[in-house]
């Protein structure tokens, strides 16, 4: 097994954009498919304490998409937008809005570029551009809270295992 590829985040202070950069040990046709085929998407997207439900998923340009993360108490967190362009296997451009915000209209635009690398590998670069710096920071910080929640959950699992061993 090759060493795990690192996830890189570029979020310069005071800017409205954030980049997520990651390489994969698979050709971009497969990576693109894992991003666009709803059956495959639910298998990796989302944090482990939530189930992911796909409400609408477009097959091409101009399609409306919506998915929900549902936590174990039944709380639903919805996200939706429109696919501007889906050009397999190289480019995916869409709008993105979190429905849980106090007001509508805080929409980001996401551009995912799937770049073919030598040796059947792929470099993914996702650029999200937000309406304001505050919107961007808010999005990242809410992600952080989810991340913290998840790691607590993982810790619980770990502690349970430890208890069973002792």
């Amino acid at each position, binding site marked *: 097994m090759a060493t795990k590829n690192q996830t890189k985040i570029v979020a310069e*202070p*005071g800017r409205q954009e954030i980049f997520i950069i990651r390489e994969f*040990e698979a050709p971009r046709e*497969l990576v693109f498919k894992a991003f666009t085929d709803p059956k495959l998407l639910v298998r990796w997207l989302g944090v482990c304490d939530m189930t992911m439900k796909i409400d609408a998923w477009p097959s091409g340009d101009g399609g409306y998409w919506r998915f929900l993360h549902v936590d174990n108490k039944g709380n639903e967190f919805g996200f939706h937008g429109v696919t501007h362009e889906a050009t397999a296997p190289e480019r995916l451009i869409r709008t993105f809005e979190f429905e849980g915000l106090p007001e509508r209209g805080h929409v980001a635009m996401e551009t995912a570029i799937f770049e073919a690398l030598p040796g059947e590998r792929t470099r993914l670069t996702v650029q999200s551009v937000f309406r304001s710096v505050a919107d961007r920071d808010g999005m990242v910080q809410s*992600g*952080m809270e989810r991340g913290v929640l998840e790691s607590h959950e993982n810790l619980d699992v770990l502690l349970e295992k430890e208890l069973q061993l002792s």
Partner: protein
Amino acid sequence: MRTRRDVFQAIADPTRREIINLIAYQSLNLNAIAEHFDVSRPAISQQIKILAECGLVVIKKQGRERYCEASLGQLGEVSQWIERYRQLWDRQFSKLDDLLEEMKAKGRTRKKK
């Protein structure tokens, strides 16, 4: 709109980032800092004022001189929230790695048939 005065605003500007680098290990007075830049002394003074308002620089009087001292504890705040966000995506991409391996294996068996 009210101007933001926090650590994020402080490091948004390249000149301000450079000032922080300069004084990170030693306190310097305004003239010593201004010497490192092509811009005017008042312009540097203005940037230092912003850094002070954001809490990243403390200005200390020593006799007639005013020294600028870096106060960098807050910088951890920035890297921490980005690191958590990174970990969140890293976990999802690990799952994607597994899925891609599976897809690759399926492709291979199909080719054999």
